[in-house]
């Protein structure tokens, strides 16, 4: 009964706020950075797969091809690594035991997402790149739900 009364009072007339806040740069987490880098991985994977091999005997085209391919690979590897780092920061620093109760598959989700980052780094796999994107979207959902907010997953590309 007391609980009903206090809940009603809190609902009808909420108390003045007291700050359990953070106003520094610490604790500013956002899965958006992982989303951007994962998108770059997807994009580079697509570009590598779409790259046409040069005609045999065309030295200039071979150089251009090798240069472009090398750059795509370098960016893909770098962005996959960056995605992994961003995800690990969310996993180890942002999420707390209290979140684990709400999302029992939290560890598994992050572990698999980190493994997908490694796979995308090593391979040229459209499938794994898409799976990585899906994993980042799932983490995006868990992150914002843990803050009680519904934030749309908007991609840049």
């Amino acid at each position, binding site marked *: 009964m*007391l609980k009903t009364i206090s809940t009603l009072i809190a609902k009808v007339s909420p108390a003045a*706020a007291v700050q359990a806040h953070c106003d520094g740069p*610490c604790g500013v987490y956002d899965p958006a950075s992982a989303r951007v880098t994962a998108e770059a991985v997807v994009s580079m994977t697509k570009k590598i797969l779409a790259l046409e091999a040069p005609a045999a005997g065309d030295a200039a085209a071979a150089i251009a091809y090798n240069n472009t391919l090398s750059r795509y690979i370098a960016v893909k590897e770098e962005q996959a690594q960056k995605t992994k780092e961003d995800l690990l920061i969310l996993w180890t620093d942002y999420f707390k035991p209290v979140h684990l109760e709400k999302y029992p598959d939290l560890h598994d989700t992050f572990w698999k997402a980190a493994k997908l980052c490694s796979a995308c780094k090593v391979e040229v796999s459209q499938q794994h790149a898409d799976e990585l994107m899906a994993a980042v979207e799932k983490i995006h959902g868990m992150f914002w739900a843990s803050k009680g907010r519904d934030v749309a997953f908007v991609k840049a590309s």
Partner: protein
Amino acid sequence: MADEQYQDYPTGVDNVHTSFSMEIESPEDWPALPELSWAEFLLWVMGRRSRHRIEGHSMLPFLQPGDEVLYQPQAYRKSQPDLGAVVIVQHPHRPALVMIKRVAAMDSDASGGLQSHRYWLLGDNWAESSDSRSFGWVEQSQLLGTVVCRFHQTP
């Protein structure tokens, strides 16, 4: 970026008398806040307790945003807070900002014959808390009250 707050306990606390010797391994180990009792409810009705609603995440998992607590104003006019007490406190440099934090350490100064105390306050959720790590020691006069129980829990 976000790794930086995971420093060991704050620097500049070498002259703390009563220090971090509590048997608390991590902020998750603090005992839960007592639920509202009829006695506390009556004290609130009589004006001896005040209510506050939590905003922000710095006291997770102890208190969630939207939770309401009862506190005893002026509890520290004469007596000192225990280590581990959850207090309502004025920001030392922004008096209009009223915060809720936990007493992590006390520093006593008896110079000049007058005993004075100051406190090192931390949020429970170190990753998302602005506390003594940024604003330093807090004077006893800035402690506005002690949190005694929960009033309302967000579902």
